[in-house]
């Protein structure tokens, strides 16, 4: 198999883009990534997106975005894996390069969510749950995560304060990210005083509904050299893994184990030839604070039941042993669902190039973990400085 390196990255700020449509956002991120790589043509395009149909009445995103970005008659498709669509699209793009089928591949993640009424947005997001056995009963995504959060707190004796620390960390880092939706540090009290949206889950335990797009260009080291891309810009995609779990929460073997993340991580670690302790920073899927805790456990960073302890012990800050959410995570950077995995990717690239506004000192290896559903579809990718 060939090696794959990312040679260009671009993104739009995350936020409520009232004046920009889905195509504007995607094309902006994509052209920025192509400019960053210094290229004008790609062999194919993969679009990570979750729910453009209900949100903006647009499917066929491959054709739309390739057309408007002026990419010509290339192959282009949308990849959907719920909120893990961005991570999955990245991995499909990398696979195309590694297999030898395509030499220069563009991947863009995009989602435009703020044009919908809030309760409709809540409904569309719940399409990633089980329609007959979850959404039928009025379950929102927040509600499903709240069920996990209450059970986690009860099982291991954590409090709402303990989990709030993940939001505080994310906001502290997001404050330095010019592309983040929330650039304000918060305190534990801010989280605790925010209203319940599905008890015990509060507004500040959850990531926001927002718009955004992020993109990368992938090729082989040989082709990167041929294209004249300076080596300082290369970031190797060293490991990838992906797995699914039961779509409905009630069918899980264990409510508090992200089994799909565990399996995906094992595959990614094996492919990259590294272990959790070798990773310099982790971009985990903190759509809800409890998911950050469970993710750290599934990735082997913390023992089962001890994910929230890492936050309590101050081990997740930029200058600590296990920095997470270095650019604000889903909580503060924002969570434009199908684009999130690609934001994580672009942020990992910036960290490994040493260009991050919130730089992890001497970062050489980074990991991104992208969750679709309530843990039903998960991707893990490992990146390495070349």
């Amino acid at each position, binding site marked *: 198999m060939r090696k794959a390196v990312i040679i260009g990255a671009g993104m739009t700020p995350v936020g409520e883009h009232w004046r920009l449509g889905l195509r504007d956002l995607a094309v902006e991120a994509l052209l920025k990534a192509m400019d960053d790589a210094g290229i004008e043509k790609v062999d194919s395009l993969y679009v990570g997106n979750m729910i453009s149909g209900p949100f903006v009445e647009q499917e066929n995103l491959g054709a739309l975005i390739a057309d408007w970005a002026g990419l010509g008659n290339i192959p282009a498709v949308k990849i959907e894996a719920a909120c893990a669509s961005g991570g999955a699209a990245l991995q499909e793009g990398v696979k195309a390069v590694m297999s030898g089928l395509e030499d220069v591949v563009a991947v863009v993640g995009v989602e435009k969510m703020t044009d919908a*009424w*809030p*309760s*409709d947005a*809540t*409904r569309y997001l*719940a399409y990633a749950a089980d329609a*007959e*056995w*979850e*959404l*039928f*009963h*009025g*379950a*929102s995504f*927040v*509600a499903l995560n*709240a*069920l*996990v959060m*209450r*059970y986690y707190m*009860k099982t291991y004796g954590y409090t709402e304060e303990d989990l709030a620390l993940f939001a505080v960390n994310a906001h502290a880092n997001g404050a330095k990210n010019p592309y983040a939706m929330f650039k304000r540090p918060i305190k534990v009290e801010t989280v605790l005083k925010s*209203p*319940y*949206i*599905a*008890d*015990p*889950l509060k507004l500040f335990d959850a990531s926001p509904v927002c718009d955004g797009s992020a993109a990368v260009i992938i090729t082989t080291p040989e082709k990167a050299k041929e294209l004249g891309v300076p080596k300082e810009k290369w970031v190797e995609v060293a490991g990838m893994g992906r797995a699914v779990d*039961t779509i*409905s*929460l*009630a*069918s*899980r073997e264990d*409510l508090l184990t992200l089994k799909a993340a565990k399996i995906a991580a094992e595959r990614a670690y094996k492919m990259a030839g590294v272990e959790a302790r070798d990773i310099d920073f982790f971009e985990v899927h903190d759509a809800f604070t409890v998911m950050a805790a469970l993710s750290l456990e599934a990735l082997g960073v913390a023992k089962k039941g001890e994910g929230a302890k890492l936050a309590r012990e101050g081990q997740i800050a930029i200058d600590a042993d296990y920095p997470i959410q270095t650019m604000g995570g889903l909580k503060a950077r924002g969570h434009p669902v199908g684009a999130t995995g690609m934001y994580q990717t672009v942020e990992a690239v910036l960290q490994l190039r040493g260009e991050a506004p919130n730089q992890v000192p001497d970062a050489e290896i980074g990991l991104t973990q992208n969750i679709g559903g309530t843990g039903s579809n998960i991707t893990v990718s490992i990146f390495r400085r070349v």
Partner: protein
Amino acid sequence: MARPMQVSRYWRHFREKYRLMGGKCENGHVHFPKRPVCPVCGSRNIEEVELSGKGKVISWTIVRNPPSGFEYYKPFPLALIELEEGPVVLAQLTDVDPEEIDFGMEVEVVTKKIREFEEDGIILYGYKFRPPVK
């Protein structure tokens, strides 16, 4: 409010949604809802079984910002209930004061209205759980 899917989509779930019909494979693994393949052993030899509808709350939440179509009912309690036969089911709790809900609380199944569409639309019924009526 979003329009309902065509009615037939719901008709195929009559038995599961009104009588809590689960599946039991040849090796005795019970699950809910019934599936074509046993999630434990992979057997495809599965018979339909009616579950008792008695169980215990293992986690719950109060849904304050529901998906569209459920605004009328908010806030409402939603729970994961472990049935006495083993499977876990997600359902709304009914006839209960939210303050009374607790881990391990005993509940039983009851058929209730789940959702109503517009004036001329269909009404969806299904299972909810409540504290046992003595």
